[in-house]
């Protein structure tokens, strides 16, 4: 299945990148531990994103199950020394460093209890991380859709007619400023270049900025580049975002190569390959994809 294959692909990518970066780390005089930390952080972040189920997650779960079993066995065995263990488990619940100290003093049985605690808290953190992520994108979607539709579109109508309508811009811009930075950040490419794309046509932009939603901005760009062009950009972007990028730009996106794109009247067909797609929070990889859509 495509999702399983994608997690396999991701795991392979991580292993290969780490492998091939070893020399680069060595050349920069960075030690192996940093490279391993990079791999572990990368894995943890990927697990947190919730795009798939990875083998290291399963390993951790298995370890957790084993630890719990060991913990249960240990607690049964150490029933005789009950007073000592209950005291230490209570401590490890309060503070990790304290737990660590106590483990050294008491011994093996509390050691398992301690690791059990840390893994369970870690996985708890992971799930809350993803759920807040979804919340954010949902919020994003709503604000992106609802607000710009009403506010900036009226400003756009005023602008071409009024000529130097700096004052009429003032209102909507002021309101937009609050949200401006958020959207710029998520878009990646600098907003300054978007303005240039709109007015001057495209000149040697890279793929990422080429794929930005700058084309529609040209209608506005002609009018607005004279006055406060850099101030107008957030508005342009916002307008376009309301149309297209109304949520996280990397959500529900497919990154791939095209073999052929064909159009007959309003019917578009495309043959795509070597792609990674994010659909509804899960990632899928594919070798080939065919698309059929009507404009």
């Amino acid at each position, binding site marked *: 299945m495509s999702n399983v294959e994608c997690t396999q692909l991701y795991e392979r990518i991580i292993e290969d990148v780490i492998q091939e970066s070893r020399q680069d780390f060595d050349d920069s005089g960075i030690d192996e531990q940093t490279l391993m930390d990079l791999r572990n952080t990368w894995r943890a972040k990927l697990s947190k994103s919730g795009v798939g189920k990875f083998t290291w997650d399963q390993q951790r779960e298995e370890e957790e199950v084993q630890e719990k079993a060991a913990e249960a066995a240990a607690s049964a065995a150490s029933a005789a020394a009950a007073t000592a263990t209950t005291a230490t488990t209570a401590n490890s619940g309060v503070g990790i460093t304290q737990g660590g100290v106590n483990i050294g003093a008491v011994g093996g049985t509390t050691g398992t209890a301690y690791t059990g605690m840390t893994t369970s808290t870690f996985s708890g953190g992971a799930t809350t991380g993803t759920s807040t992520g979804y919340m954010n994108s949902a919020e994003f979607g709503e604000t992106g859709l609802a607000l710009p539709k009403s506010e900036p579109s009226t400003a756009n109508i005023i602008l071409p007619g009024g000529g130097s309508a700096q004052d009429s811009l003032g209102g909507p811009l002021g309101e937009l400023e609050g949200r401006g930075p958020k959207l710029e950040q998520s878009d990646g490419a600098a907003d300054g270049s978007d303005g240039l794309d709109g007015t001057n046509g495209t000149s040697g932009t890279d793929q990422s900025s080429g794929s930005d939603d700058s084309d529609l901005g040209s209608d506005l760009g002609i009018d607005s580049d004279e006055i406060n062009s850099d101030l107008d950009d957030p508005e342009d972007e916002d307008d376009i975002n309301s149309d297209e990028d109304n949520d996280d730009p990397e959500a529900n996106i497919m*990154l791939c190569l095209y073999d052929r794109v064909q159009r007959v009247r309003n019917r578009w067909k495309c043959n795509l390959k*070597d792609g990674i797609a994010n659909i509804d929070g899960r990632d899928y990889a594919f*070798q080939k*994809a065919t698309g059929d859509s009507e404009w």
Partner: protein
Amino acid sequence: MNGPSYYEFYRRSTVGTTLADALDTLIVDQRIQPQLAMKILANFDRVTSDNLRDIVKSKLSFKGHLHTYRFCDDVWTFVIKDVNVKFDDNETINVDRFKIVACNSKKSGEN
């Protein structure tokens, strides 16, 4: 690296953004230099392109209403609405809105 250069746009995938995050953490903690991070990302571009080509075998198809199409700098961008995605195990997913960024396969490897 004198060989063929690779597309950088796969960095926008989840595996790419999480790598960038992880590298960022190391840079902020002053454990690595940004120049090294750039090299790692270049390694990522190469590894991802090669692995996608070599190990992935799945296929999928989709149907929907083409909302926006754009062809700029040899990159196709489509925004498709009310999409039905069908995987090769006959599983289907419906999505309200879906964006495709596609680079030219012919130029792959020479960018």
